[in-house]
């Protein structure tokens, strides 16, 4: 029987998984559509934090042509529309005054960039988002951690916060202007309010759902309170936290536009209003493009900064979301 068992041991080792795609290539694949599938990704990430090992092995992804042509298909429609409109204006089938063709948008963009206007406005907006994001994240993290950790705090605070969340945040604008003035403070606070809720929800949920079984491992090794937070709780909530930060940042960009609509002398939102009032649609579209680019870049920055801490995540599951 002993020899039989040895044979079994050799068998199990033979069947043990040996090759895995590099986490890096998987990270690249998984990234693109995660924001769109935020809800489902969130639940998946929680699953990965429970310590259950995945037995299924990732299929090795080959660098096939299909991998590039599939996303490229999505570009077809906008490119055809843009080229069609460009041609229509070029051949005087439309005048392109209210709907500027791509070439005009590009030259407006280049002109704004050359004069330094674009940079000035973009920086003003970026500064507001950064300040509001910082405040919102700080408040959301602290309150989320408190309510997630203590059921008393949750019962005390969460109903009020959920009630506040039900108010469309834009509705605060008149009050914020009365309280805080028309200048920077009210804008930053509005953005912070927008950022706060997704961060708070993400953190409170993540902290509350840290697997008790993993916490027990920490207890068995007699971790102190601080060590428990550092070695167990923080790494366990990090994947959900990153997603909460990204949702928060998305709302931050949304609210900065609202904030700049309520009266600003600079900022990308000002460019929008200015373009409307002076009848410069190309400037409006150029500002919208700038929002898209900067928004995507800042989101990517969060992903980039946190990626080294999340290499352990089970990317197989995120790639099922992607497909």
């Amino acid at each position, binding site marked *: *029987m*002993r020899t039989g*068992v040895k044979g*079994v*041991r050799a*068998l*199990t*080792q033979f*069947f*043990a*998984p040996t090759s*895995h795609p590099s*986490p890096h290539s998987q990270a690249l694949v998984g990234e693109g559509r995660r924001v769109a599938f935020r809800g489902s990704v969130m639940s998946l990430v929680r699953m*990965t*934090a*429970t*310590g*259950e*090992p*995945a*037995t299924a*092995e990732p299929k090795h992804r080959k660098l096939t042509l299909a991998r590039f042509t599939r996303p490229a298909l999505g570009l077809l429609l906008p490119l055809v529309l843009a080229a069609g409109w460009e041609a229509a204006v070029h051949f005087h089938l439309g005048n392109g005054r209210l709907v500027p063709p791509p070439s005009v948008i590009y030259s407006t963009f280049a002109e704004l960039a050359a004069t330094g206007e674009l940079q000035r406005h973009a920086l003003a907006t970026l500064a507001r988002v950064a300040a509001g994001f910082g405040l919102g994240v700080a408040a959301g993290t602290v309150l989320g951690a408190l309510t997630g950790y203590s059921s008393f705090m949750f019962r005390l605070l969460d109903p009020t916060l959920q009630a506040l969340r039900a108010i469309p945040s834009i509705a605060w604008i008149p009050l914020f202007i009365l309280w805080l003035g028309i200048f920077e403070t009210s804008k930053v606070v509005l953005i912070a309010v927008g950022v706060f809720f997704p961060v708070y929800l993400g953190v409170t949920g993540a902290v509350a759902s840290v697997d008790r*079984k*993993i916490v*027990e*491992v920490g*207890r*068995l*090794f*007699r971790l102190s309170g601080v*060590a428990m937070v550092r*070695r*167990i709780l923080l*790494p*366990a909530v*990090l994947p959900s936290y990153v997603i909460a930060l990204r949702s928060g940042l998305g709302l931050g960009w949304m609210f900065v536009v609202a904030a700049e609509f309520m009266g600003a002398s600079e900022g990308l939102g000002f460019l929008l209003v200015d373009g409307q009032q002076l009848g410069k649609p190309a400037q409006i579209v150029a500002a919208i493009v700038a929002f898209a680019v900067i928004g995507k870049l800042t989101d990517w920055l969060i992903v980039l900064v946190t990626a080294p*801490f999340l*290499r*352990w*995540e*089970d990317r197989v599951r995120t790639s099922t979301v992607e497909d």
Partner: protein
Amino acid sequence: MLTLDHVGKTYPNGVRALDNITLAVAPAEIVAIVGGSGCGKSTLLRAISGLDTPSRGRVLLDGEQVTRPHEKIGMIFQEPRLLPWLTVADNVGFGLEHRPRDEREALTAAALVRVGLSDKAEAWPRELSGGQAQRVAIARALVPQPEVLLLDEPFSALDAFTRADLQDHLLDLWADLRPTLVLVTHDVDEAVVLADRIMVMRPQPGRLYEEIASELPRPRDRQSAAFDFVKRRVLAALDRSLAKPVTVDDTRTTSSQGAALWW
């Protein structure tokens, strides 16, 4: 020396999970606790580990009362409970944070060699099979050199081949390190193949019902008549503990099944 002194546990809702459990386990002894589901065997193990505190009685290790997790008591659960954000090597070294780095690395590497997973040192837990992950959990529990290792149905989630493999593996490790093992299981074969002593528990309230010594020489042949004999005694005791009519004949020294394999 691990001693349980009249240990009882009553949950706040009034359920008596454990009642008056007294047990002494000698150093390097292997004790298996078997019983029907809900008989409190996991509760008992958690009380010994210090994760839960008994409502009555005391758990003593070398005369010192255990009221919270103790550095000389390690535990392995049904699930590996590896930390998914740490590599296999860092998981194994998790309990050695306070040691100097080179000592930690040496101990971790040695433990991985011992469980046959040196080549997985830098792998993430998700890349392991169930059996490999449980081996890492065993290595993590053994690295701080506990005097007592508690195992809560450690192999029940594994397939039969891997389970038998890990049982042998655990015995090899035990022969080298000689910790006291207290094993909770509902697999009678596992209890008989591993233990020096098998305690049968009875539910509601959880009590020690019967004690069966197993002095089979190691390594134990799972197909031998002597093995079968001990197994029948345990099965009969389990039936009695559940107040069922005894369906297993434990008086014969060889069973027909054992005999068939014997020829």
